[in-house]
Structure formats: structure tokens, C-alpha cells
């Protein structure tokens, strides 16, 4: 550890020729970073500004205070979308985490054909959400998909009509989203499992730990930083989910599967209410910050603790 710290301090004090020599490095890192930061920040600020204006079809200046916010928060659409987000977000993150971890542990048993299996599980990630949504909308349609298949096989009383059941429809989005992205969780967990210190495992084996105990007490505890990363990435995905719902249920049946991103799009582009749409977008940003800020604080704490050690 002291060696690396020393190395860092040495490179942190570059000579003049060093700066010139590292110019390409600075250019490749800082220019895109500054550009994208400027983009992100300027557009966010602009959206925040628009959310306080009476803009409808096109952006206009003016000030309406919090009126856009209060009217968005009062709509059934937004309230349904927010409840759905809580349910979808927690169910999706939890279940994709568990599925991903199980897949990773099973793949970690040094089995034959691991590469093939890994590609299969990762493959859904390469498919766009619109495709996922469309395919699952056929599979889950009671008149076309799974329900019809099972009924045609002879189980005529079999029912699986979540897609058209307004209480269960949100779960179809959970199913499709898990199918799509548990491979991603699996890949991260697998990398984590492979990087567990083999000395630790050997020591545990010598102490006579069985496989279940080994995972519970030795291996899984080392995975928790990865778990946090997976949770944060999946959560920000859940908050901004748009194309999947749009293709799978389009917010229906009725407005039962609305999600915040759908509401934003709907307000801005379908209803021609830019101000209210911007207000909804800012509310989404606040939800995202509620996830990302604690994560950033946690990372900061981790680093400080590491430096102390």
C-alpha cells in the first residue's frame, strides 16, 4: 500500500516535459469530459428554467412560480406513475440482483460450456428495449402467447393475463426488465467472484468450511461493493425506463402502468405543455439525485476510510 501511495505522489509532480508528453492524455480526457458536462449542466439548467415558465408549444419567457409543479403533482397520471416507480424500481432491482447473483454463482462452479452460457445470459442486453418490449407483449398477450400455448396443450383453465390486468400489468414490465438486465448483474457479480482472493478460500477450506458456508461467510461479504454498484446502476435505469413500457404496455391498460418518463414525454410532446413537462422532468431528476447523492456520499466515505487505513 505505501508503495502505491509513493508512486502516486511521484507522478503527481510532473516536470514541464511531462506535461507536454501527457498532452494527448489530457486532451482525450478533459475535452470530452468538459463538453459533456457543459451539455448536461446547461440543458439541465435550461429545463429547470423552462419548468418555471408558462411555456406550452414553444419555450417562452415569463414566470409562473411553482404552478407547473403543483399541477403535475395533482394529476392522477403522475401519482400513478410515482407509485408504479416505487413498486417497479424496488421489485426490479431486488429480483435482478438475486437472479444475477444466482446465475453468477452457478456459472462460477467451473462448469463446461461456461462461455456459451455466459453469452446466452448476456445476450438480452444487446437487444434494444423496444424489441424486448414488443416480443414480451406478444408472449404475455393472453390471446397469443404463453396463456394460449398452455391452454392449447390441454390445461384449459390456465390463466396468465397479467398484461391486460391493470393490477398486475406493472409486473409484466418487471419480468421483461429482469429478462433483459439480470445478465448484466451476473457479469458484474461473476467478475467479483473471480477476484476473491484464493488464499482466503483456501484458508476457509482448511478450516473445514462447506460450500454454502463458504459463500455465506467468506465470498459474498467481499461482493458488497459490487452489489451497491449494481443497485445504483439498475435504479437509475429503472427511474428512466421509457422505451420498454412504451413498447410493452404503452402505459396501459388505461393508465395503470404509467412511469415518470412516459409522463414527461406525454406532457411535452403529446400535450404540447412544455412547462409542465419540464417540471415533471425536474421531479424525475430529483428522484435520481435521491439515489445518486447517497451513493456519492458513500463512495466518498469509502475512499476516506481507505486513505486512513
Amino acid at each position, binding site marked *: 500500500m505505501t508503495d502505491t501511495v509513493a508512486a502516486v505522489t511521484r507522478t503527481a509532480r510532473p516536470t514541464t516535459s511531462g506535461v507536454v508528453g501527457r498532452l494527448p492524455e489530457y486532451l482525450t480526457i478533459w475535452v470530452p469530459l468538459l463538453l459533456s458536462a457543459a451539455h448536461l449542466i446547461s440543458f439541465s439548467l435550461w429545463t429547470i428554467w423552462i419548468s418555471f415558465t408558462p411555456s406550452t*408549444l414553444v*419555450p417562452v419567457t415569463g414566470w409562473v412560480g411553482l404552478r407547473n409543479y403543483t399541477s403535475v403533482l395533482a394529476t392522477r397520471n403522475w401519482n400513478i406513475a410515482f407509485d408504479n416507480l416505487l413498486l417497479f424500481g424496488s421489485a426490479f432491482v431486488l429480483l435482478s440482483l438475486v437472479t444475477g447473483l444466482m446465475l453468477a454463482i452457478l456459472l462460477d462452479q467451473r462448469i463446461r460450456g461456461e462461455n456459451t452460457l455466459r453469452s446466452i445470459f448476456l445476450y438480452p442486453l444487446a437487444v434494444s428495449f423496444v424489441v424486448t418490449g414488443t416480443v414480451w*407483449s406478444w408472449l404475455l398477450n393472453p390471446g397469443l402467447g404463453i396463456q394460449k400455448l398452455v391452454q392449447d396443450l390441454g390445461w384449459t383453465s390456465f390463466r396468465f393475463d397479467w398484461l391486460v390486468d391493470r393490477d398486475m400489468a406493472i409486473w409484466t414490465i418487471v419480468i421483461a426488465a429482469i429478462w433483459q438486465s439480470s445478465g448484466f448483474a451476473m457479469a458484474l457479480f461473476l467478475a467479483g467472484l473471480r477476484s476473491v482472493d484464493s488464499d482466503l478460500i483456501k484458508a476457509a477450506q482448511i478450516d473445514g468450511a462447506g460450500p454454502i458456508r463458504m459463500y455465506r461467510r467468506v465470498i459474498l461479504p467481499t461482493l458488497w461493493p459490487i452489489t451497491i454498484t449494481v443497485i445504483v446502476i439498475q435504479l437509475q435505469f429503472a427511474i428512466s425506463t421509457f422505451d420498454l413500457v412504451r413498447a410493452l404496455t404503452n402505459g396501459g391498460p388505461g393508465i395503470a402502468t404509467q412511469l415518470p418518463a412516459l409522463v414527461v414525454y406525454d406532457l411535452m410532446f403529446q400535450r404540447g405543455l412544455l412547462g409542465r413537462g419540464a417540471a415533471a422532468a425536474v421531479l424525475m431528476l430529483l428522484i435520481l439525485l435521491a439515489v445518486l447523492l447517497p451513493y456519492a456520499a458513500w463512495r466518498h466515505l469509502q475512499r476516506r476510510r481507505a486513505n486512513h487505513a
Partner: protein
Amino acid sequence: MPITTTRRRLLAGAAATLALPSFARAQGVKPRLTAISQWSAGSDGAAITALGKKFEEKGGIWQHSPVPGFTTEMMNKLRAQIIAGDPPACSQLKGPEIAAWSKIAPTVNLDSVVAAAGYEKVVAPDLAKLHKPGGKWIALPLQIYSTNMLFLSKRAMDKAKADKVPVTWADFNELAEKMKSGGVTYPIANGGTRPDDGQKFEASLAGISPTAYRAAIMNLDKKALEGPEVKAAFAQTRKIADWMDPNVGAQPFATNAKRFIDGDMGMMIQGGWAQGVLRNAGFKLEDFIITPGPSDNSKPVFLLNADAFIFWERKEPDLQAGQALMAKLVMDPAIQTMYSQITGSIPVRTDVDLSGEGWSDGQRRTAAALKDAVANNQAVLSLAHNMAQENGLTAAMIDVLTEYVKNKTIKPEQAATRLAEAVEGAR
């Protein structure tokens, strides 16, 4: 926004430079039209391409850029062009959106061209009003659909042993029951989209009372919105919903075309475009009947849906000449005939004779219904197809309607209250 200003100035400069040669040639400009619409494929695409051909035959340059997909995507392009200070010479736009959009960019005053063609006399008054916000014609309707035409499957009628088309809602309900007991699985063929659900309600209310429809939906009168007619319309909508296939997710109505023709489903409440869809799918006109939607006073009620072009102000003489030519073409009975025969709509002009070849019985009945409805003041503007209110209000109201259709625990009284609240919240 400094960026926009510079860009606008730049564009104005570029446009002026481009326009210079045509100024020099003065009178002899070749009419040119830049147009955007969402019509790119199917019968819509074919119809506008045919219109473009006619434009070129008259010596014009036709520059149509279709924006395929939803109307909103076309609107996004239009918005971007307007903000950039470079609107198309003409674009698709309909209903109250014409008035809304005309506030954000200057439009062309078409009064003299319209007067010269004597067009106002032959257009339904409610429709004319939409195209002249502030009293001046700035847009021209192109074709008309009624959103509450009743399509009857011949095979389903046979199963029900019925030969009379229903006139009132009571007739309609009786026929649906007969179909059900005659072995038609779902008496109503429906899609699961928002306009589909909205259409069921608007057909119910307008059929029960066009006066109440006008007060509640077009004028947003609070008392009418919670009045007995609206509650009755919700009750009728529930009956219709109970006869639908519950398995339809968010698919368009066209998914059920085959089951409808086969008599597995009995009736559709759709616009004339469904005729085009059914024929495109290979079904014959003999397989189904088109008749005006149920009306409790037995006189046809017409729920107007009209596509239109709005004309944006341009300084270039060739574009201005193009706009004049386009306006003349759109109002021409021969052009309207050509257009409607391709898409399955009816002409905007009420003086076009539909007895000739190339028209279907359904189109003839639709046109007759429009004439009757206008005479009896029973032609009203469709809510589900964005004719009655601006998009923001329409969407808020359709939210209530689509939720009601899908959620059978909502009572008609509750739905009426929610509708009034949605209107209040969106205003």
C-alpha cells in the same frame, strides 16, 4: 436566446440570397411548395403522392418531407423548423391545434383565395370555424371522417339472424345481445389504444344527445359534464366495454380485422379509415356494412374528424406562388374526390356527387349522414381525434375515458366527476 437569433438572422440572410434570382425574374416564378406531414405509407402516403403529382402537372415543384410515425413526431419537426425561423410553406395540422400553433408563428391569410373559390358555403360551419381562428382562413381542410360509423360484420349478422341495421342505442344493445347468444364470441371488435377507447365514449354521448355533447365536450360546460347525459354515456360505454375482447392489450383495432370479418366479432365503431384498412387486408366490401353510428333521436349524428393543411408565412415569391396553387388544388372538388377515393374518407365539400364509380356505399352513407347532420345541427367535433379541444385538454380527458374502459370497478357517476375534474385540472 442569443443562439436562435443569430441562426434566424443567418437563415433570413440565406433565404434572401436564394430569393434574389427569383425577384429578378419577377412574374415568371415557378411555384414551389415545401410541405411536411406524417403521411408516408399505405393509403395516406398514396393519396398525398397523388396530390403531389397533380401539383407538378400544374407546373409546380413539390417538396414533401414526410415524418413517419405519430402526429407528435411531425409536430416536433414543425416546432423545430418554426423555432429556427424556417417553417414549411404548408404543413399538416388539425382541429384546435391550428389556432394554438397560429399563435407561435405568422400564417398566410387565405381569405381571398377561399372567397374566389366560393368554398365557405360548401363546408360544415363547425369545421370552417376551426380553420379560421380570429376570423381569417389560415388553413384548409382536406378530407373528412366520421369517427362514429358503425361497421357490421355480415357473418355476425347471419349468426344473430338479424337483417336490420341498428338506429338507436337500444337497437344496438339488442343486436349485440342477439349476436352474443347467436355464438359471436365478442359482439364488439375493438383495439386497445387511447383514441379507440375515447371513440366508444364520444359515440355514446353524441348518440344519446348531440346537444349535451356540444355543451360538455366542446364547450366544457361544468354542469353538462356532470349531467345525466354524460352519466348515461358512461353507462353505455360500459356495456360496449363488456362486449369487447378483454385480451386486447395496446394493439390497434386492425389486429381484429379478420375476427370481425369471420363473424367471431360483430361490430366496430370506427372512422371511415377502417374501410381502407379492411380492403387493404384483402376483405371485400360485401363482407361488412357501414352505417351511421347509433343515435337516439334516429337522425344521424356525425362526429367530425378532418385532416387539414395550415399555410405558414414565407417571403419567397416561388413559395408564395406554390401556396396559392396548393390552396386552389385542396379546394378543388376533383382533387378532393381523388384524395378521398384513395383513403376511404369523404370530401370536405358537401356539394361533391358521390353517386359515381369509385365510391363505396359506406362513403355515400357517410356523406349523406354529414349532410343530414349539418342540416339538423348534429355534426359535432370528435374528442378522441383531437378536433374538439387542444391536445393538452384532450389527453387529460382521454386519460379518464381509457381508464374507465379498462377498469370496470369505476361507476358512471364517478367517471363523470373525474372527467369534470380532469377538465378543471388541465385548463
